[in-house]
């Protein structure tokens, strides 16, 4: 008699070493919320929840207006798993569409950007206007001789109407040059989502900003780990070895504080107060790191602005960097880095800004590679299950090294995903960290 292979009940499956460790190392003395259950970085369920509860529900920063300056300019982007298309219409408005032909679903653009009055799917030649309207199907193509092959009224018997098949349009809104789109048809107005942060960022986003530097990379880490790197300041003191002896703030340390805002947004520092001493920090003298500050920013100031969930606007006096992230899997994140300058810059000033951007933030620069090495190493340990918890327990009245910024981020993350960030086992109870 053959034995059934399904006779073992799930309850009999032994706990893995990692599961045992998860229980054994759960912080006992720390209060709830002062630590992170690292499975929120590695678990596929957590990623599914954040895609559905965050990236598909909220506004996503997708590009800067300067990336599509004229009518017909388009820019490809992505929200969660969906390829999208930003396209500036004849009237100047930017609209967002799902980047897929309504005929047989082919991705309709084949370049990251371009200028075109009408987009034609390369497969069966369905053609769309920049309003999204389907102008013609392939068989309607002027000049195409399909006599005897296709009949002009071939669609008529099935009730097909071109008006029913425009590109799928998505909510799209801009704020001071930042272009946002959302997969959520009933997303709240952008200004409501930004809330009080809007006033903060409006001060440092003049209309003459333009993107002059762009690079992206697929980083072998979870998106939240790079977000954490952007949102905690102690790595700035402890991790950038070239700064270790000199410290981050050479001048006005009192201005280095967090401002935590509704919806998980935040700011750090003061746009008008000088906090940096690059020479002491080993970046070399006379390299123009603080000259020609951007409008609204003081010489030597380094204010930071965080738009939940993934965007950081980082200004170092005369250059601006905007980060955004697209989670590809729990352990793989596409990070986009934009460097911005002013369209009114002289060639000399532009060169200084670019040089400054590259020195610290370029792919061959000083700081960014250090951050990426760290967050990749972090993920590797977490994914092994050998490091089940992270500590975010510092409290310093919102001074630079206060972990409150991270705790606020994760409280918002928990609220949106339904997963308590300090204990994934409590998902079923819906209990939030205190």
């Amino acid at each position, binding site marked *: 008699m053959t034995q059934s292979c399904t006779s073992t009940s799930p309850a009999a499956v032994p706990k893995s070493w990692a599961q045992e460790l998860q229980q054994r190392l759960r912080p006992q003395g720390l209060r709830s919320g002062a630590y992170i259950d690292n499975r929120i970085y590695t678990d596929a369920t957590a990623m599914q929840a954040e895609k559905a509860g965050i990236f598909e529900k909220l506004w996503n920063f997708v590009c800067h207006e300067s*990336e599509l300056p004229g009518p017909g300019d388009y*820019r490809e982007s992505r929200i969660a798993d969906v390829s999208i298309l930003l396209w500036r219409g004849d009237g100047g408005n930017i609209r967002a569409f799902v980047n897929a032909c309504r005929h047989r679903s082919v991705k309709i653009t084949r*370049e*990251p*950007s*371009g200028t075109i009055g009408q987009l034609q799917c390369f497969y069966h030649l369905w053609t769309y206007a920049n309003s999204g309207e389907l102008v013609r199907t392939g068989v309607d193509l002027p000049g195409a001789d399909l006599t005897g092959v296709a009949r002009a009224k071939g669609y008529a018997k099935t009730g097909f109407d071109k008006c029913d098949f425009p590109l799928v349009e998505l909510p799209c809104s801009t704020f001071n040059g930042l272009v946002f789109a959302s997969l959520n048809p009933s997303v709240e107005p952008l200004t409501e989502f930004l809330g009080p942060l809007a006033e903060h960022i409006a001060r440092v986003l003049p209309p003459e900003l333009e*993107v*002059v*530097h*762009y*690079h*992206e*990379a*697929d*980083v*072998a880490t979870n998106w939240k780990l790079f977000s954490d790197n952007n949102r905690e300041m102690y790595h700035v003191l402890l*991790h*950038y*070895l*070239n700064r*270790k002896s000199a410290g981050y703030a050479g001048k006005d340390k009192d201005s280095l504080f967090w401002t935590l805002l509704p919806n998980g947004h935040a700011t750090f520092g003061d746009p008008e107060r000088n906090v940096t001493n690059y020479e002491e920090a*080993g970046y*070399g003298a006379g*390299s123009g790191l603080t000259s020609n500050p951007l409008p609204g920013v003081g010489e030597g100031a380094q204010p930071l602005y965080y738009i939940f969930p993934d965007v950081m606007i980082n200004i170092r006096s005369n250059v601006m960097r905007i980060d955004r992230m697209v989670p590809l899997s729990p352990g793989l994140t596409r990070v986009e880095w934009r460097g911005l300058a002013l369209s009114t810059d002289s060639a000399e000033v532009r*060169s200084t800004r*670019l*040089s400054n951007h*590259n*020195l610290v933030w*370029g*792919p*061959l*620069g*000083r700081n*960014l*590679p*250090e951050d*990426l*090495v*760290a967050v*990749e190493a972090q993920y590797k340990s977490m994914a092994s299950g050998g490091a089940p918890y992270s500590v975010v327990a510092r409290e310093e009245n919102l001074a630079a090294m206060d972990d409150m910024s991270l705790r606020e981020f994760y409280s918002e993350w928990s609220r949106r995903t339904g997963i308590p960030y300090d204990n994934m086992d409590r998902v079923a109870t819906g209990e939030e960290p205190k």
Partner: protein
Amino acid sequence: MSMDTYQVDRLTEPPDSKWLRLSQLVQLSCQTLDDEDFAGWLSLFDAVGRYEVRVYSHELRREMTWLGNDVSEMQSLLDALPNHLRDPGGLMRVASLRSFDEGPDNTARTRSSVLVYKTDVYGMTSLFACGEYRDVWTHSPTGYRLRHRILDLKTRTLGVGSHVPL
């Protein structure tokens, strides 16, 4: 493009000594960087030499400079290397001289394809970047020196990036 563009007629002649010399120098520029002999690498440049990494952005539809420094600025970057947290792997550059033109005032221009491989400390090797060195050389009594190296990168995603020039 005409066949002249590719200097086909040169293929039938034995490589001249200048070609060979410049080819050796291109190899040396790779070897010094692979060995992290930065003093040796910088000594290949003349006093006003410049190193640039450029890339065409299909996203912005413009050429970008990802690094652009003169020799003293490169010296400053390389001096700071020991203080940086670095990817512990190593890079190997494989270059091949493709074309050579003599210019006015004892200058020469060369173009060399280059592949950069990355090997991590566990022995895993992957292609890190590909591109082309576009070099301008000056000739002096001491031989050829690099006046301007442009690395025209085709690869636009460099993972964690690199503290060491490519």
